[in-house]
């Protein structure tokens, strides 16, 4: 079966800095794949290359088996993208923003259906600037869902949200996945990754340094000789794996 996302030897440099230093990645249909890593590990750069927003210096990306450079328009119809820091137009109402994004796609649900799905129907006539952080984030995901995508990209979708909003977003992702959608998300929260993702990749210094299901990664940590005796009283978590792989030093943004 053709993978939904397939990236080969992606490299992206910014002057002296190599942000992404050879990433290979495959995401399969119906999967939720999580890309984890400290700040500056190259997650966002990688995701933007997968989304067709940033051309790689080397390597290739294909979605649904179609390479970006020949099928850009078609691929954009089939993916939904939520970016880390997009400010949607502050003075537009929720329904107006959704209708706007809906109009960009050939096919998809009606604006009313989209609003109901992200539980923003009560806020339909509220200006974007007056929404809470969680509501803004749900609106952002709603815009990504406007074309009934087969593949959804979420870049740190829950950063800065309160626990209720975070759970509401998780429910959205799960619903989307249950209906057959494929998800690729980045996150800083190990709990989120453990809960949502079927497989995760841990990135550091522009490379994927570990890849597998959350269970595989924690099991390999518990079994590694270097950590023998660390986990006698408790099971290792994904966070233990993350810290063991990427170290304890603070990273610059």
């Amino acid at each position, binding site marked *: 079966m053709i993978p939904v996302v397939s990236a080969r030897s992606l490299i992206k440099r910014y002057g002296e800095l190599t942000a992404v230093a050879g990433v290979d990645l495959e995401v399969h249909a119906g999967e939720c794949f999580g890309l984890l890593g400290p700040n500056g590990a190259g997650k966002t750069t990688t995701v933007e290359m997968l*989304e*067709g*927003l*940033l051309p790689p210096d080397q390597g290739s990306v294909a979605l649904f088996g179609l390479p970006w450079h020949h099928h850009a*328009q078609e691929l*954009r*119809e089939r*993916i939904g*993208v939520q*970016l*880390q*820091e*997009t*400010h*949607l*137009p502050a*003075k*537009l109402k929720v329904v*107006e923003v959704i*209708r*706007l*994004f*809906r*109009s*960009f*796609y*050939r*096919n*998809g*649900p*009606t604006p009313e*259906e*989209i609003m*109901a*799905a992200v539980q923003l129907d009560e806020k339909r006539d509220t*200006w974007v600037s007056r929404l809470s952080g969680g509501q803004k984030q749900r609106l952002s995901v709603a*815009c990504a*869902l406007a*074309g*009934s*995508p*087969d*593949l959804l990209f979420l870049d740190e979708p829950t950063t800065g949200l309160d626990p209720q909003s975070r759970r509401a977003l998780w429910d*959205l992702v799960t*619903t*989307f996945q249950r*209906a*057959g*959608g*494929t998800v690729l998300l980045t996150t800083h929260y190990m709990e989120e990754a453990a809960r949502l993702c079927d497989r995760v990749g841990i990135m550091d210094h522009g490379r994927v340094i570990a890849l597998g299901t959350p269970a595989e990664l924690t099991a390999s940590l518990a079994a590694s000789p270097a950590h023998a005796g660390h986990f006698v009283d408790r099971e290792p978590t994904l966070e233990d794996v993350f810290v063991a792989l990427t170290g304890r030093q603070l990273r610059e943004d």
Partner: protein
Amino acid sequence: MPVLAPARSPSRRRRDYHPLWQLTLARFREFLREPDAVFWTFFFPILLAVALGLAFRNRGEDPVYVALLRQPGADSIARLLERTPGLHARVLPADSAALALRRGSVALVIGRQDGRYTFRYDPSRPESRIARLVSEDALQRAAGRTDPVATTAEQVREPGSRYIDFLIPGLIGFNLLSTGLWGVGFTVVQMRKEQLLKRLFSTPLRRPHFLLSFMFARLFFLAAELALVLSFAYLVFHVPVRGSLFAFAFLAVLGAFCFTSLGLLIASRSRTLEGVQGLMNLASLPMWVLSGVFFSTERFPALMQPLIAALPLTACVDALRAVMIDGAALLSQAGEIGVLAAWGVVCLGIALPIFRWR
């Protein structure tokens, strides 16, 4: 939940709205929900017209002030000059008279020496030359001169030949330029800063639709803007539109297209508001000075005329003025129309491929 169902699920429907229309509506709504922008677009040209209209209004005849040197008999000469309407004479000692002349509070100093009058004035000042002629005429008539030929004066003050008539089409052109550059430039760069352009770029939205939405939104505002300024000019200053309204509207639309393209080109790469502001000033300042908004371009040297004529604002203002004041036909403005269309097409043609979406 079938709503979010991806793949080829039956809940997929065709869209009900055209993206260009939705984007134009968004532009339109965002603008109307920004009271500052509405004020500057619609009321600024009117404020400017009022201010300049007051400053350059056609008053009656300007009074002429002259000084007489304090000499024996000066007072009776002053009384004699005062009999001429609009002529005001004061008797001053020599040093005060010299000071008053330098400061411009009198236009002329009259003295008397050996039975003849002396006039001291700066011939480069038009009001001084008038003061001299009026004073001399009064003195000569008082001394018994008679006119060999009879004359009558016919005073003209018809709409169409005043400064305000010249100014209104200039201000309309000027406003087309400012709203085209600032309205588009700031909005685009703000959207780029806030990652909204990148977000749009990730959707199947056709790139030209995005740029065209700015043009379409401008047309809505243009109609309101023109109606407001033209009716204000007509009601308050009695400035007529002599040519056809259709020709006038056509030129305004073409001007708006041209300046919106220029705005898009200027904003096509900038990442900061400061950067785009600098570029917009660089593009618009020369046109404000050179393009004949406030005064005739004929004041500039002949060498510069071809350059001035090639500027889009010159073409816009000249054509609007020709239609409005002279009642010119649209076809007679073919050259100006060509200049505007060429600028618009070239700017848009360059902006589209180099536009930075990130």
